[in-house]
């Protein structure tokens, strides 16, 4: 199915290759490089490139192209999903998935790829099982290994593969039993010129970190489960129970895992946490433009909006921007024309603003489009959809676990048109 995998960085170097069937020559990547050259931006490289004898299916993440070489017809979604799984695994193992991290851990990478695919077919992709086969490198372990000469490989057979519950190994022991759940929501929204919402949707996930002894059976219930319309669960969740009672009942995997991801698309449910007042204008015939931006909190249920970062791609004709922020700092890159304003926290009493002038190239005509403003932000202790966990119970074990839940809202693809 998947013949080979090439890892290519944005400057076009193949820095890792792995072949599962016969060896495919590197020259097959020339077709990819051609496409890369043609694309103006790195993300514009088409994901599927047909070549005379192969297909190249690539995903771009963390500025690395993961290029899979396919020899026969395959379902494209399958390959794409698998490549993303590979990247997720790397990220899980090394914390970051950069070229440097992969090069530093090249051996673990080879081991992982070897376990994940056999003869081109996915073999073990579940992070828990992989972690038992190959221990992730940590600074401590690297040090211990250097001193004692022990290895990163699990010495015994991963028990998970034989236990009744495939995602949990038997005989887990912890001194502190704890279960943490993070509800993280991202708002993707497009706001138009006048401030009304064009589209808005919420992508949410519940990530769990469960460190419990034995075989605990957990149930998690929500105050408002009807909110979730598009839900995707970790395989451990008993789907029947969810359908009948809207309760999450599951035997959790050990360690970190994503319990569920969901999607709220009905627009009336999506609250927009900030508003933007903007006045960006260029006058015909003059080489000056006005820039005036004010941010304010909108529907935040009393929580403060933090870590706000505003960025905007100004028109090509803009030479410099002379602006004055009421708080935070701003930078303007004259080459890429990217304006970034690091606002920080929004104080509702004193709204942050960025005012000033832009100077245009002499003789350039008035730019025909206004820039779009991208906003990143964080709100702690609130899930913007209003999702709330009601209670968490544990059955099957005697001890009392420590339970914790955290809410967080972030801006995903949040943009305001001007």
């Amino acid at each position, binding site marked *: 199915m998947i013949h080979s995998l090439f890892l290519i960085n944005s400057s076009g170097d193949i820095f890792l290759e792995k072949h599962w069937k016969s060896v495919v020559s590197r020259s097959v990547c020339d077709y990819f490089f051609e496409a890369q050259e043609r694309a103006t*931006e790195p993300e514009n490289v088409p994901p599927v490139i047909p070549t005379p004898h192969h297909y190249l299916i690539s995903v771009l993440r963390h500025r690395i192209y993961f290029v899979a070489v396919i020899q026969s017809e395959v379902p494209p979604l399958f390959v794409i999903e698998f490549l993303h799984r590979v990247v997720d695994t790397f990220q899980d193992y090394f914390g970051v998935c950069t070229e440097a991290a992969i090069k530093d851990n090249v051996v673990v990478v080879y081991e992982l790829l070897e376990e994940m695919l056999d003869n081109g077919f996915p073999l073990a992709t579940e992070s828990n099982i992989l972690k038992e086969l190959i221990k992730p490198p940590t600074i401590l372990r690297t040090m211990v290994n250097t001193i004692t000469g022990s290895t990163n490989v699990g010495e015994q057979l991963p028990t998970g593969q034989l236990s009744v519950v495939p995602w949990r190994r038997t005989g887990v022991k912890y001194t502190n039993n704890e279960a943490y759940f993070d509800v993280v929501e991202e708002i993707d929204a497009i706001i138009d010129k006048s401030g009304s919402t064009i589209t808005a949707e919420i992508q949410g996930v519940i990530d769990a970190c469960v460190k419990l002894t034995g075989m605990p059976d957990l149930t998690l219930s929500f105050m408002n489960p009807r909110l979730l319309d598009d839900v995707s669960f970790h395989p451990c969740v008993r789907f029947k129970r969810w359908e009948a009672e809207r309760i999450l009942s599951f035997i959790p995997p050990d360690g970190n895992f994503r319990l569920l991801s969901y999607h709220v698309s009905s627009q009336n449910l999506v609250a927009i946490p900030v508003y933007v007042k903007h006045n960006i204008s260029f006058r015909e015939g003059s080489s000056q433009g006005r820039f005036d931006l004010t941010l304010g909190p909108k529907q935040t249920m009393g929580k403060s909006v933090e870590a706000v970062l505003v960025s905007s791609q100004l028109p090509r004709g803009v030479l410099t921007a002379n602006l004055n922020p009421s708080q935070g700092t701003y930078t303007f890159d004259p080459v890429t024309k990217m304006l970034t304003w690091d606002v920080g926290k929004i104080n509702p009493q004193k709204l942050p603003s960025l005012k000033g002038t832009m100077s245009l190239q002499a003789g350039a005509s008035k730019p025909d489009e206004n820039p779009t403003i991208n906003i990143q932000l964080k709100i702690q202790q609130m899930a913007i959809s209003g999702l709330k966990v009601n209670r968490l119970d544990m059955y099957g074990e005697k001890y009392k676990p420590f339970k914790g839940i955290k809410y967080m809202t972030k801006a995903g693809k949040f943009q305001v048109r001007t």
Partner: protein
Amino acid sequence: MPYLGSEDTERELRRALCNPHIQSDPLRYRNTVLKVLRAMSQGVDVSGLFSEMVKACATVDIVQKKLVYVFLCSYAALNPELSLLVINTLRKDCQDPNPMVRSLALRNMTNLRLSSLVEYVEQPLTAGLRDRAACVRRVAVLGWAKIHNLQPNSETDAAVVNELYTLLRDPDPVVMVNCLRALEEILKEEGGVAINKPITHHLLNRLKECDVWGQCEVLRVLQRYRPQTEDELFDILSLLDASLVSPHPPVMAATLSLFLGLCSALPAVGLAALERVRAPLLTACGSPSREMRLTALCHIQLLLRSLPGLMGAHYKRFFCGYAEPAYIKQRKMQVLVELVNDDNVAMILDELRGYCTDVNTDTAQAAISAIGGIGRSYSDRCLEILTGLLGLKQEHITSAVVQTMRDLVWVCPQCSDTVCEALEGCEDTLQDSQGRQALLWLLAVYGERVSSAPYTLEVFIDGVRSETSVGVKMELLTTTMRLFLCRPAETQDMLGRLLHYCIEEETDMCVRDQGHLYYRLLHRGIEETQKVLQGRRSDPSLGVLIGRPAEPVSQWACSFNTLDPLKQGPVETEPPSRGSPEHVTFDPKPNTDLSETLDCSQIVKLHSASDRASGCSDSSAEGLASSVAPPLSLSLTPVLSPEEFERLWLQRQDLHTEQDAEKREEEEDCACLVEHIRGPAIAHCSPQSLQAAMQLVNIQTLAFTPPHTLPWRVYLFTHTQHTHSGNAPHSTLIVGELLYTGEANRRVRLVKTGSDDGVLVEGSEEEHVREGGDPTPAGLRESARENGEEEEVKVTLKQQPRDDSALKGFLSILTTVLHTLSSERA
């Protein structure tokens, strides 16, 4: 990129590997092996270290073993003899008490991929199939597939194949899926693993145990299974229902693909399945991964071909984000064009207008041509936007706008006034050859209405020497010729200059020949020239069909969940760089492959003539048919593609216009019939139920206008099979059109003179003539006339070869179906 000092590196590494001090220290030994691998991954050729690495393989350290195996597997092909040394160690590892070591050894043994080693590998593999540990069995099963790949020609042991079939029932789901994969490869020549009823049901029951990848695999293999009874089919479908809305897009897509395959005989179920996957597909469109979004979009495009209304309410999901890559934006725009309806057209156009000024020129041009696409149904609003864009005086935008206008005017001639106004003054901004060609074409067709046309042409002709594009020169010639015909005084001089240049100085053969052609044509006199050059204007009759007709699911079901929908670049579907419409008339695309637009009076004459003829024979045939009435059966095969249908339909129409005697014979060979069937509210029933009803009696509907639009049309076809007593079975092809204008029939007849709709005029006129000419097939029509106020559906049928009794039989079947449908509605 091989290092310059690769030999030095290799020598140094070899020294280290052979150093007994290093060999005695496991840690340093492993680190040296690690260095070798690092060098290998950087592209340094370290194949020379093979024998040293073979030695390093004999160790207890699993990590070192793994590393050495990685090395050996990459270089084994270069050193087949030395690889033999490794086999011993590997075989010993296959006996190891630790299952992980066993599976590792087995896997690498098969990964060496040396056909010389096959005999040593087979025995441990056979043992591996019966190993206690599932992970060893998983590897062993796939190992057989690898061995088969090594020796594709040799017969695989039947015992092994049998064993693999037994392992399909292994308790471990991964072993089961791997067995499927292995058998697929080994039995490729026999068409893959045999899928019979017990295996199918076994696989379906265990589907839930498999991981995502396994489920996809199983679903893919099951596509070959054909259930024997309908009950079984529905059992399977209900088992699959849960995975149809699976949160994993690959599983969802694989299930839908299987669903469509199974329901090929039940289009209604297939359509219901499409409705079910709407939510998961939309979620995939919002997935954080761009590649996933693109794939989902491409598949949505496929779905929309059959259910244009599927995503109508969700059009906002297809609005582009600022930072999205160009390929996604372009796909989204294509989807948006499909989703336009009265309610959202304003929003969508606003949105698209925003994309027209995108930094990426390709995206901007795609947005403009998307607006053009919407313009076919909402021309006024779109033209307003397009003319507005001309005001920006941006090179690439103007070019795209002019090209779009050209394409639009071809389908909607009513826009020509606005276009002509807009054309003034945009020649200065046009730089690229495509845009200029489009401008020239427009000037050629509407030259008499653009006052500045001769001046624009003059500029072009003055600059013809420095012109590089052949296409522009050819277009320029044609335009000047055409303009000369309508505005001779202003153009004569420049036409002379241009022809002189083309014939005397031009080096390109095509242009020169065309110049010669026109020159000789002018010699034949102005009338002759006019006949040749001014024949064709656009033909709007196909613009009646709003949007693309819904295709049956089977048209694209086989390419669902494959790479096919992704392959066609976004440019291909709406090529911005295509020549003038006239240059592509051979292209079987709907809006270009048209007969000449006909002068109305001419049709009438011809039709009355031809129809009287066919009408007469009709009457005699009818008498015959009623007395004999031989059994008639309809069938759908061979299937007629929409292109073929269109060709046939238009060809039939053409024939009427040809006066040549030899064509008459051909016409004898086909029959044409127009009838009215009373059926209130047929036009209001859903396309699905109509299609289902038609299919019950083996009539295939090819295209509909959406319900509640006027005029409402349905195109359909069938084959009649007809056994005359004593004769061989006789089959004919019938193509037909149902037309419902929404008014009582009388009104239609009033409209006819003013209407530019060719088909409509032809139909009612024809009918008119027949009424006067022959009264025979009067029964039905007479009653229709009496109930003139009631709603009627006009049926136009064309048959080939001619067989009147079959046609009559077909008509009565069709009438019954329509009556049943409308009575159900009531």
